[in-house]
């Protein structure tokens, strides 16, 4: 049994547990063997002094739900080995919140163009700086702060 740091209940009545960053992969493997067969989503939250990763799990055999949270500073283990669906969710979290996932096969930006500066869902993201995207000759996106070089 992997130890949990603390636990509580969210407003909708789902059990919520905090797990140390070092144990997260082993803890999730245990949960998967326990019957949590669907990873619904991965959320990254920027709490200014630290980052948090939230996993929503669902078991379709008995309908149980579980929320797993871990505090991190930029990097956390990837869940792609356990649930294939984690791939896109982790890429999105890297893209928008800027959390790296160790062991991810292809950690590229998903929604924004490769080369985008900053992570929009961070609380200190500068909203007034516009970035312009253009498709390069090689089929990859180019990002620039100059409006003449993109749309």
């Amino acid at each position, binding site marked *: 049994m992997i130890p949990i740091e603390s636990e509580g209940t*969210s*407003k*909708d009545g*789902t059990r*919520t547990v905090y797990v140390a960053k070092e144990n997260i992969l082993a803890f999730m493997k245990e949960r998967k063997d326990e019957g949590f*067969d*669907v*990873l*619904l*989503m991965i*959320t990254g*939250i920027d709490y200014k002094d630290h980052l948090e990763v*939230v996993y*929503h799990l*669902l078991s*379709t055999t008995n*309908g149980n739900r579980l*929320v797993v949270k871990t505090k991190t500073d930029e990097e956390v283990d990837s869940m792609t080995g356990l*649930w*294939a*669906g984690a*791939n*896109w969710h982790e890429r999105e979290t890297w893209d*928008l919140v800027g959390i790296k996932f160790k062991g991810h096969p292809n950690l590229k*930006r*998903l*929604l*924004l*163009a490769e080369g985008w500066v900053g992570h*929009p*869902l961070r609380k200190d*993201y500068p909203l007034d700086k516009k970035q312009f995207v253009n498709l390069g000759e090689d*089929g990859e996106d180019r990002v620039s702060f100059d409006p003449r070089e993109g749309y």
Partner: protein
Amino acid sequence: MEDKLIEVNFGPQHPSTHGVLRIKVRLDGEYIVDAYPVIGYLHRNAEKLAEMGYYPKAMIYVDRLDYVASLNGELGYVLSAEKLMDIQVPERAQWIRMMLVELNRVASHLIWFGTHGLDMGMLTPFFYCFRERERILRIFDEVTGSRLLYNYFAIGGVYSDVTPKAIEMIREFTGNFVTKLEEIEGIFKKNYIYVKRTTGVGKLSLEDALSYGVTGPMLRASGKSWDLRKNQPYLFYKDINFDVPTRPEGDVYARFLVRLEEMKQSIKIVEQILTKLPEGDFYNKKYAKPMLIRLKANGESYVPTESPKGEFGIYLVGDGSTMPYRFRIRSPSFANLSATPVMLKGYKIADLTATVSSMDPVFGEVDR
């Protein structure tokens, strides 16, 4: 062998991508070896926009996620927000929500039917489906005042009551819709070419479906009887009789059959709601419109709902202020679409449009 592979770029400006999906496909002759979907062409960062405004303001962004089933999105948001703020909703409002959401599900599936027909080379079902959908939109126009993006559900109830005229329109619609649907059904089922092109194509095993987090009609077409309205009922779904259609095959034709049966079940649900619709308030008087912007919340909540595409919900984190601290959208199309490579591998390039359209992706929801 490696040098014989051809890379083909499908989309983002292709009519059968249902929006702006781009897939990089690697081909060995006519067979797909590898597929790499590229998304993000419709990205607006609705999560950030919602975090920048008051709680009720987020509704307009939720509307624009799955724009063919706006009310289903709104439902996911209001349920989550009401749980977060401990707001009670009058019974009549909840029954109204259920009724409109089911009608919206039919409208969404009708769009899918029409466009799926177009993708498979049939023009007729498109007109039939849009003719029927138009009747639903007229009902929505009467009830909510808009035809596509409603902003009708409010935290604490709905914005206006359902008029007797609207009830009459809904009765008329449910009265003859199923016979009209059977006309459309025949165009697909009796078409030898359609059945041949979809049977055994784009298979998704149950194991893969669960691993990728696929939900909704796609999961049910892969053999799992999982419907949140039945398994984890919200609103008053536990008081209503309906079946959950399931198919074991997991191919495009199975998804077609599941969605077809779901529309009939939705009509059955609406008919039952019409007989049970209670009298009373349609919103919580404590939360009249001007009060809404002062709503504050602490803690977090996530209420899952069954949207036409699968499990939709919004994970809200409040920090005690009038704006959500984190507004995370769980969109079913996003998870469903991430399983594209498994469904395409090993099939012919001609099956690609059938498979992609069978997923019913809506890009407002995928790219957010």
